[in-house]
């Protein structure tokens, strides 16, 4: 026992063994004093001290889970039930058999015993169920918890949602005061509080080298924080005071400690025991995997957003000729008008003009200049709006027609320059859809630009929009070269491109499809080689206008 105390790393075991050790030592050594009577030596205090042994064992059982007391209680209850059942049966059955059927006492007794033996198995099973269900409801719930938790958690790919669900489900099902999750922050190299129930608004962060963290990392074992384990006051203080935690479970993926799950006090005031850990340990393992998955998914989404942004900037590069032209033209007009006036003045052409005429001429120049400045400004504004990275996509009701117009303003000049006609056919009164406005623009932009690039000028692009059974359908058709059946299968693959180097990064349609699907839409394509291609988008239409809805 002494060796165990010396060598063990488990604080729970250490406590249990040392209590038993000291209890036994004190109890037995005082018990031995009774034998001193043989030698006529009185040891009057010995007998009361013997009880110290029992007290110590009892203390260890109750406080430090020395024995699984629940199993004892459960077995006792089941046993008592079975004995009661047998006794009751034996007391009643033979008596009745004797009284009503006149069966001799001895035979009746044997018959009674047979009945008891036959029904024993069934009765025992139902007693186990009853005790599990009513007296040890917690255990019963735990099985449910593990199932429910795994079902829910494994489906969440959104990290924030996953963390919230975890603390909420745990707190409610295990009936805790609260629970919290710390996750490793790769940049700060600390474990940061990322979700909590019952300790909201707290700022907690644990360093990589903090004792609790190193302990969890190295042992993969849970740590009790209920003040019975001698961790440095700082950890104990921080955890128990700020997060009111009683149990810390490590979240490991291989050898990496990716986080710490902290559970608060049970509402029942019971300590966390072995049966809790039987459920919570696999749960922590599941959680660690789910969290890692969600983190990877988040990273992937970020990488994709960055790729989309790069693609957009590349697109703007190819657009620059058209946009440059649209800005140079108004500037050219302003410059020409101003110069013409100054040169007229220098060359004496204005001599003899009435002040009325001069005022009218200058006013006219100003008006033209202002109009042209607005024209150039509008283009730069649209361009910078389009170029900005989309940080938080927000779904809102948008008019497809309006977005088509915005996009055609940006690409239109380029297409006109290349002798490509754009024909717009929008069904009047087209319903709105729900989408992120700028993402929708990005999609339309990419499709129209692709259509333009597929065409060997001169050619035509039709942009059509109509409703079809509750959906808004947009079609972008070109008179381009078409896509072969073989390539049609690959067009949504990242980095697939048939464009010449420098014309496309190949991410276009890959990103387009992702954005469409993220906005609850669908994308389709039909193509005939040599004739052209039609890309179609379908989004659920927003239900009729409020007036119509009210009239229903």
């Amino acid at each position: 026992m002494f060796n165990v105390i010396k060598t063990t790393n488990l604080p729970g075991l250490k406590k249990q063994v040392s209590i038993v050790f000291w209890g036994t030592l004190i109890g037995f050594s005082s018990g031995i004093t009774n034998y001193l009577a043989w030698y006529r030596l009185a040891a009057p205090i010995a007998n009361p001290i013997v009880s110290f042994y029992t007290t110590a064992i009892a203390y260890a059982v109750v406080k430090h889970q020395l024995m699984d007391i629940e199993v004892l209680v459960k077995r006792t209850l089941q046993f008592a039930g079975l004995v009661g059942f047998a006794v009751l049966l034996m007391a009643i059955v033979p008596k009745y058999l004797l009284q009503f059927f006149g069966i001799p006492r001895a035979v009746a007794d044997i018959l009674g015993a047979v009945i008891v033996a036959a029904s024993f198995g069934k009765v025992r099973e139902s007693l186990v169920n009853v005790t599990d269900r009513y007296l040890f409801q917690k255990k019963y719930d735990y099985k449910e918890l593990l199932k429910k938790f795994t079902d829910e958690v494994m489906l969440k790919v959104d990290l924030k949602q996953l963390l919230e669900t975890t603390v909420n489900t745990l707190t409610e099902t295990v009936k805790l005061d609260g629970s919290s999750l710390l996750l490793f922050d790769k940049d700060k190299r600390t474990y940061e509080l990322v979700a909590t129930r019952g300790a909201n608004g707290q700022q907690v962060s644990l360093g990589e080298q903090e004792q609790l963290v190193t302990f969890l990392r190295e042992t993969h074992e849970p740590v009790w924080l209920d003040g019975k384990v001698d961790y440095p006051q700082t950890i104990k203080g921080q955890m128990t005071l700020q997060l009111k935690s009683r149990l810390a479970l490590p979240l490991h993926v291989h050898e990496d400690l990716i986080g710490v799950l902290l559970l608060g006090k049970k509402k029942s005031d019971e300590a966390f025991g072995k049966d809790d850990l039987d459920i919570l340990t696999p749960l922590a393992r599941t959680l660690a995997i789910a969290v890692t998955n969600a983190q990877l998914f988040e990273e992937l989404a970020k990488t994709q957003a960055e790729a989309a942004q790069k693609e957009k900037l590349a697109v703007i590069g190819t657009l620059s000729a058209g946009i440059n032209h649209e800005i140079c033209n108004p500037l050219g007009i302003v410059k020409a008008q101003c110069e013409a006036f100054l040169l007229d003045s220098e060359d004496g052409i204005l001599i003899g003009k009435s002040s009325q005429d001069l005022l009218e001429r200058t006013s006219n120049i100003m008006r033209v200049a202002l109009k042209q400045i607005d024209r150039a400004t509008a283009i730069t504004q649209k361009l910078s709006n389009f170029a900005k990275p989309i940080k938080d996509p927000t779904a809102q009701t948008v008019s497809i027609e309006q977005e088509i117009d915005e996009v055609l303003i940006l690409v239109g000049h380029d297409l006109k320059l290349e002798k490509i006609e754009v024909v717009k056919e929008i069904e009047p009164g087209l319903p709105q859809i729900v989408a992120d406005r700028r993402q929708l623009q990005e999609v339309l932009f990419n499709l129209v630009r692709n259509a333009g690039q597929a065409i060997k000028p001169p050619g035509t692009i039709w942009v059509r929009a109509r409703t079809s059974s509750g959906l808004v359908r947009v079609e972008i058709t070109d008179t381009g070269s078409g896509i072969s059946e073989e390539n049609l299968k690959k067009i949504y693959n990242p980095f697939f491109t048939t464009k010449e180097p420098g014309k496309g990064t190949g991410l276009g349609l890959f990103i387009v499809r992702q954005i469409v699907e993220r906005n609850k839409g669908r994308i389709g394509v039909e193509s005939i080689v040599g004739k052209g291609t039609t890309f179609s988008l379908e989004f659920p239409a927003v239900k009729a206008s409020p007036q119509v809805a009210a009239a229903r």
Partner: protein
Amino acid sequence: MAQPKMVAIDDEVEFTKTIDSFFGNRGYEVHVALTGISGLELIEYHKPDVVLVDLKLPGMDGDQILQQIRKHHPEIKVIVITAYNDGGKTRDRLLALGAFAHFDKPVSSLRDLAEAVKRALAQPSTSQPQP
């Protein structure tokens, strides 16, 4: 010398108006068009000394008009107007195709344009275009 004749073709109305009044004030007979097709009609009708034509036009563009003029009226000097600001790439191409000069909005100055037109008129119509 008779009044010099000019045809200006540009779909930017305000620019065409400026050219009209600027050269009109300086003794030119100016005819303006907003499309390539009506521009060519004006050229056929007026037989101008010099043509100002925008490169980017709806329908028939500046390149095609330049070709037509070089083919049918090589004596007419063509000054091509662009709005590219692309560091001379377009200018070199146009001069190689036989344009007399190049005016790039908003870089070029109206004074330079006036000089170019003067030079065009001063040059004998049979000479080869200068790069």
